[in-house]
């Protein structure tokens, strides 16, 4: 293995000297990835008890999931809330990020700090606060209430992604368009938007995922026929290990993996 003796960087270190680092890093990366993926084969086990590797393969738990009206209703609610959250949080976040970035107003910095508070305030506090306040106005157990809360949780992410995209974009292009007679709105939609569109798509996907995966606010604010998938999953996890959860988890992992790979693909395109 001659590459071992080659320099690892243009300093004095060879790959052999750094072998320990490669091994440690590999173990850590495996530890990061394996736990998530090990659920997948286990979900195809025939047994009540999750086994790895399964003695007998079957799609029993998937049938259980797809035939349960409780799980199906929860899944539909989660997807619905996720999409609506995406549709609310993305424009809201993009508008705010653009406004604060372009205006250069004295208050912009403070306003930015205010707009990312949903990331700083512990979620449990937002959850019980929303539960209490929504109770007063009849928003608990409604899609509207949950979407509102999730949009607030997701908008800081959108803002941060869009702000960093705008930072890498030359705003002078918009100024040129405006000096040629375009209104600010037209300049934004024709010149700026097409150039940050991939970041917008990424932030939208993240907004969907934020809502789809969110547990704590959903536990409090959603309920009844509008309970989310995560709320039911959490309840099932606290009581006993239901193999149906393995099947649902597998589906959720696939969804996140596809979305992540989509953003990576989009990211490489934007460069």
């Amino acid at each position, binding site marked *: 293995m001659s590459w071992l003796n080659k320099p*690892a*960087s*243009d*300093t*004095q*270190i060879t790959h052999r*000297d*750094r072998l320990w*680092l490669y091994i*440690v*890093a590999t173990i*850590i990366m495996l530890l*990061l*990835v394996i*736990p*998530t993926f*090990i*659920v997948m084969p286990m979900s195809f086990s025939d047994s009540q*008890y*999750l086994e*790895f590797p399964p003695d007998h393969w079957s799609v029993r738990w998937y049938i259980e999931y797809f035939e349960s009206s409780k799980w199906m209703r929860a899944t539909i609610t989660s997807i619905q809330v996720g999409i609506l959250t995406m549709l609310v949080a993305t424009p*809201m*976040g993009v*508008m*705010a990020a653009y*406004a*604060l970035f*372009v*205006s250069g*107003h004295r208050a*912009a910095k403070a*306003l*930015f700090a205010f*707009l*990312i*508070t949903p990331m*700083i*305030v*512990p*979620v*449990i*506090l937002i959850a*019980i*606060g929303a539960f*209490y306040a929504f109770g007063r106005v009849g928003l608990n157990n409604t899609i509207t209430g949950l979407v509102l809360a999730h949009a607030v949780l997701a*908008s800081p992410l959108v*803002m941060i992604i869009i702000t*960093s995209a705008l930072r890498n974009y030359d705003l002078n292009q918009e100024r040129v368009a405006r000096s040629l007679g375009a209104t*600010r709105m037209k300049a934004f939609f024709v010149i700026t938007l097409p150039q940050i569109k991939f970041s917008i798509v990424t932030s939208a996907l993240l907004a969907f995922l934020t809502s*789809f*995966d969110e*547990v704590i606010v959903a536990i409090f604010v959603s309920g009844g026929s509008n309970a989310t998938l*995560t709320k039911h999953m959490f309840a099932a*996890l606290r009581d006993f290990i239901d193999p149906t*959860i*393995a099947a649902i*988890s597998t589906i959720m992992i696939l969804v*996140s*993996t596809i979305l992540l790979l989509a953003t*990576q693909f989009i990211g490489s395109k934007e460069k």
Partner: protein
Amino acid sequence: MNASAAQEPEGLNEKRLKTQGIREQRMLLSLATPAVLAIVAVVVIPVGWLFFLSFLGSDGQFSLEHYQKMIEYKSYARTFVTTFQVSILTTLICILIGYPLAYFLAMLPERLAGFFMLAVLLPFWTSLLVRTYAWLVLLQKNGILNDFAMSIDLWDSPLKLVHNLTGTLIGMAHIMLPFLVLPLYGSMKKIQRDLMHAAANLGASPVQAFWKIYFPMSLSGMVAGSLIVFVLCLGFYVTPAVLGGGRVVMVAMQITAILENQFDWGAASALGVVLLVATLVILFAATRLLKLDAALFGKH
């Protein structure tokens, strides 16, 4: 417009431009209104309400009884100690594991780093609930880890790895690791390799160069990442609730328990307020002391 402006009295054009500029700035800021209103509705008003409730005694008068209870009752003190303990331990584990990983990623050429970065990003994007569940399955008494360790004679009888502090720490470290690795990787990428060459040139051994040059320069990212991890840990609920098996009671869990069992909004709110204040004080103090604004929020 410019032609007509030339015929107008001196200074008028300037004045108009200024008012127009101000009007435009206001219009721009108004684009942020929906976001502001939503946050006011979901965060400011509800949390403000809780703040108010926490100072309301059982007789409906202003009182500090909920805060007094926190000092008097041992269970509260235990919860706070557990919360800090778990948060500090999780942060330390993340640093120990995350530093070599970030270092490894930062050393790699861009393309390879992008690929291996998926190992960090994939769990990051996967539902926290799913990952908690995965650990629950892995660490059980008859779980894969115990089976595997016993099959290679690492230990003889199944170890109790879950429904206790061990399980909680493993799960939380796994979930928090990306929050440390990503900022740390960012700060490592900014370190100029020339500095390491210069150190080598001046006779430093690789180890010396690392500790004297590289490590101090990567500290800002490490501290920023640790801070994020620590603060997020303080408010953690799902993972300790599932993997702690009732033995690890953190603040967020006690808040929920109080609401579920006693329906005592005052007590729950008071705990929440303490959690929020602790979070804000730590963030504020750290950003001020360590000048982390740029590392945490980017330069705005």
